[in-house]
C-alpha cells in the first residue's frame, strides 16, 4: 500500500497493528521547540517515542515535516442521529471528525428523540462504536425533553453503558436559576458537569444576529452580548455557591471571557470552550443575508474575536469545541430569519485554529494539543483520550502538516451537510492521518 501527497512519502510494511511514525515533530516533546522523533504504535498503545527507532515488521509512515498531536477531542458535536439523519448520521459525522483529526466527540443531546434517557444515550454510544471512526461520548440532556421544566434522569444516564458525565440542554439555555442550581448540585454525586448554553431567553426573543451596527443596518433582531454574559455571571456564582463543575459552551463575547477570567481567579470550578468560527469570523459576514453565517450564539465583532483569541491563549477559555451543526441544504437556502442556526466545523477546526492561533503566534503546537485534546478530554471526564503523547498511553493521535500551502475550503467532505462558513476561504494546513487506539482512521487525508 502506498499513499501519495507531499508529506507522506511512503507507507510500507506488513504488521497489521504495528506502526512506526518516523521523523515526526511531537508537540510538547523535548521542550517547547518540538524535536523530531519516531513513534511506535503497537497493541493500541504508544510503545515508544524516541529518535531512530527501527522496528521491523511495523508499517512505516514517514512523517517528515508533520506535527503529532494527541487525538483531538470535541466537547460539542451535533451528530443529529436519531431524528435528523438527512442532516448527519453518527457514521457520517464521525467520519468527518476523523478527517478533522478527532478521535473522540461528544454528541449533543438535542436529537429527536432527545438524549434524555439511558435508552437514547446508549443507542448513540452503540452507533458510535459501530461506525468506528472515532469514539462517540453521548451528552445527556439536563432537563426532560430539553423543556427546562424538570431534570432528566441524570443518574441513570451516568450509570448506563454510555457513562454520561457531561449534561447539556444545548440549543436551549437552562434559564430557570433554581433548576440550574439543582442540576449543578445533583451531578456532583457522579462527577458530572453541566455544560450551559448561555442565552437569556427573554433578552433574545426572535434574535437573529449580534446586536450592533450590523443588526441595526440589516434590520435583523439583535442578540445582545449581555444575554450571554448575564447567564454566565449567574452560573459562575451558582457553581461557586454549590461547589460544582460548570462548563460554558461556545463563549462568544469579550465580556464573557472577562467574567470567566474573574471566576477562575476566584478558584471556582468553571471551564469554557470557544468555537473555531468565533475565533475567525465576524458579524459583518451577514451583510449579504447568506444564512450560512447564521449561528447561535451569533458571530460577533472583531473586538470580540481578538479577546476570545487572547482568552484561549492565556487559558481562560480552556478549549476549542466545534459546535459542528450540520443542516440540510433547504434549511439554509432561504430567508435569513427562516434559516436554521448552525455551521459545520469538524473538518476545518484544526486548520482554523492554525490560522487564528498558531500562525498569529498566540499558541504553539503544545498549546494546541492542550486546548484541542488534553483539556477537553479532562472536562469531558473521558478516559483513554487527551493524554500527552508518551510511551504507555493509548495510541490516539493526529498527524498534521502545518506547512501544507493554504487551500480554499471546499464544502464537500464526509459530513452529509455543506453548511460550512469557511467555503472558499483559504486556510493553511492539512490533517494527514488520524489514529484511534493504534489503528488508522485517516491516512493521507482520506478515510482509511
Amino acid at each position, binding site marked *: 500500500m502506498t499513499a501519495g501527497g507531499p508529506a507522506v512519502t511512503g507507507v510500507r510494511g506488513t504488521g497489521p497493528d504495528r506502526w512506526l511514525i518516523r521523523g515526526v515533530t511531537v508537540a510538547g516533546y523535548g521542550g517547547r521547540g518540538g524535536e523530531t522523533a519516531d513513534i511506535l504504535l503497537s497493541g493500541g498503545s504508544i510503545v515508544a517515542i524516541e529518535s531512530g527507532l527501527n522496528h521491523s515488521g511495523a508499517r512505516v509512515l514517514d512523517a517528515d515535516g508533520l506535527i503529532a498531536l494527541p487525538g483531538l477531542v470535541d466537547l460539542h458535536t451535533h451528530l443529529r442521529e436519531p431524528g435528523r439523519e438527512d442532516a448527519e448520521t453518527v457514521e457520517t459525522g464521525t467520519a468527518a471528525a476523523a478527517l478533522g483529526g478527532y478521535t473522540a466527540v461528544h454528541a449533543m443531546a438535542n436529537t429527536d428523540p432527545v438524549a434524555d434517557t439511558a435508552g437514547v444515550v446508549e443507542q448513540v454510544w452503540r452507533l458510535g462504536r459501530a461506525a468506528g471512526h472515532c469514539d462517540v461520548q453521548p451528552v445527556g440532556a439536563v432537563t426532560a425533553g430539553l423543556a427546562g421544566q424538570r431534570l432528566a434522569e441524570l443518574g441513570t444516564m451516568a450509570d448506563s453503558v454510555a457513562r454520561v458525565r457531561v449534561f447539556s440542554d444545548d440549543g436551549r439555555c437552562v434559564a430557570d436559576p433554581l433548576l440550574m442550581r439543582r442540576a449543578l448540585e445533583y451531578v456532583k454525586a457522579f462527577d458530572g458537569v453541566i455544560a450551559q448554553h448561555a442565552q437569556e431567553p427573554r433578552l433574545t426573543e426572535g434574535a*437573529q444576529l449580534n*446586536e*450592533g*451596527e450590523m*443588526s*441595526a*443596518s*440589516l*434590520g*435583523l*433582531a*439583535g442578540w*445582545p452580548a449581555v444575554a450571554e454574559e448575564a447567564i454566565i455571571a449567574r452560573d459562575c456564582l451558582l457553581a461557586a455557591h454549590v461547589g460544582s463543575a460548570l462548563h460554558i459552551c461556545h463563549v462568544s463575547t469579550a465580556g464573557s471571557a472577562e467574567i470567566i477570567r474573574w471566576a477562575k481567579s476566584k478558584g471556582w470550578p468553571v471551564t469554557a470552550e470557544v468555537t473555531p468560527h468565533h475565533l475567525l469570523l465576524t458579524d459583518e459576514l451577514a451583510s*449579504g*443575508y447568506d444564512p450560512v453565517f447564521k449561528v447561535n450564539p451569533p458571530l460577533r465583532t472583531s473586538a470580540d474575536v481578538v479577546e476570545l483569541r487572547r482568552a484561549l491563549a492565556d487559558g481562560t477559555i480552556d478549549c476549542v469545541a466545534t459546535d459542528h451543526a450540520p443542516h440540510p441544504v*433547504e*434549511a439554509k*437556502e*432561504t*430567508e*435569513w*430569519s*427562516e434559516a436554521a442556526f448552525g455551521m459545520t466545523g469538524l473538518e476545518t477546526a484544526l486548520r482554523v485554529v492554525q490560522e487564528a492561533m498558531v500562525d498569529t503566534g498566540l499558541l504553539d503546537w503544545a498549546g494546541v494539543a492542550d486546548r484541542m485534546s488534553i483539556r477537553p478530554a479532562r472536562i469531558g471526564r473521558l478516559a483513554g483520550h487527551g493524554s500527552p503523547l508518551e510511551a504507555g498511553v493509548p495510541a490516539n493521535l493526529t498527524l498534521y502538516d502545518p506547512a501544507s500551502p493554504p487551500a480554499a475550503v471546499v464544502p464537500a467532505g464526509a459530513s452529509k451537510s455543506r453548511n460550512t462558513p469557511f467555503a472558499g476561504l483559504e486556510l493553511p494546513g492539512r490533517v494527514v492521518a488520524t489514529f484511534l487506539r493504534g489503528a488508522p482512521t485517516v491516512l493521507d487525508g482520506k478515510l482509511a
Partner: protein
Amino acid sequence: MKRHLISAADLSRADALLILDTAEELAQLADRPIKKLPTLRGRTVVNLFYEDSTRTRISFEAAAKRLSADVINFSAKGSSVAKGESLKDTALTLEAMGADAVVIRHPASGAAHRLAGWVRGSVLNAGDGTHEHPTQALLDAFTIRRRLRGGTGGRAAPPYAGGSGGSSPRASGALDGVRVTIVGDVLHSRVARSNVLLLSTLGAEVTLAAPPTLLPLAVGSWPCAVSYDLDSELPKSDVVMMLRVQQERMNAAYFPSVREYSRRYGLDVARMARLPDHAIVMHPGPMNRGVEIAAEVADSSRSTIVEQVANGVTTRMAVLYLLLGGTEFPAVTQ
C-alpha cells in the same frame, strides 16, 4: 445604476437625482389625457407580495401599467419552508416565466437580497421585514423636493395643486441642508432605514426622534442625529416624518402605554404649531390617527400624506424605467 434596487444605500447621489429628475419628467404625464407610455411594452413585471399591502402593490401595479408593462400579481400567504413553497422555488418559477423585474414585499429582512441571487431579472425591494423600503424613501425625497424646492428657490412652495402637480415649476437639485426629523419606531421601521440613507445621500440633515427603546442600539453609527425630545426638534425641522406605531409594539414594553407614547411623541395641533411656517408633515401610511398623528394634523395643509401616494406611482415608474432600461422615454417632453 445597479441592476437591482434593494437598499437605499445602493444609490449614489447621482443615481438618486437621476431617479428624482426622471420622476419629475414622468409627472408631466399626469396632465395628459392618455397617461400611458409604451416604454416597457412586452416586458413583464411580477408583484410578489408576501404581506398584505394594498397601497404599495397598487402603486407598483399602476406604475408598471402606465409604462405598458405586463403585470402579474403574485400573492403568497405565509412564507418559506414551514408553510409551503420556499422563496427559492418561487423565484425559480418566476424566472422560468421570464419575469424582467420582480417587485417583492416580504416579512423577512433580506428577502429581496436573497431573491436577487436566484433570478436574472431586476429585483425591486418593496419592503423587506424591518430592513428597507427604498422606493418609499425615493417618493418621500421626491415629495420633499417638490414641496420645499419646487422651483421657488427653496422658499415655501405654493399650495399643493393635487395629483402630481404637473403645472407647478419642476423641482430639481438635491436636498442639501433640508432638516428632516423622523419620529417614532425607528427600530422596526424599514421606512426610517431607507430614508436615513437616501436623505443623507441627498444632503439632508436627518434627526431621529424616538424613545430610546425604539432606536437601534447602534444608531450612533448611522448618518444622522438622534434626539429623545421631539419638542426641541420641531422648531428646527423643515420636514417631520411620523412613523406608524405597530400594534404589536404596544404591549411589548417598548413604552408604558399608548397614551404616554402619544403624549411624548405624537404630533398634535399644539406640537404642529411649533414648526416653522414652511414645514411639512409626512407619514408613509397607514396612519394610526390619534396615536402618532392627530386627525387635525393629518388633514392639515402641511400634510403631504395624499400627495405621497400620488408621488409613489411617479417615482416607481421612474425606478422601473431606469432599471429595465426602457426606450422612448423622451416622448414625454416632445
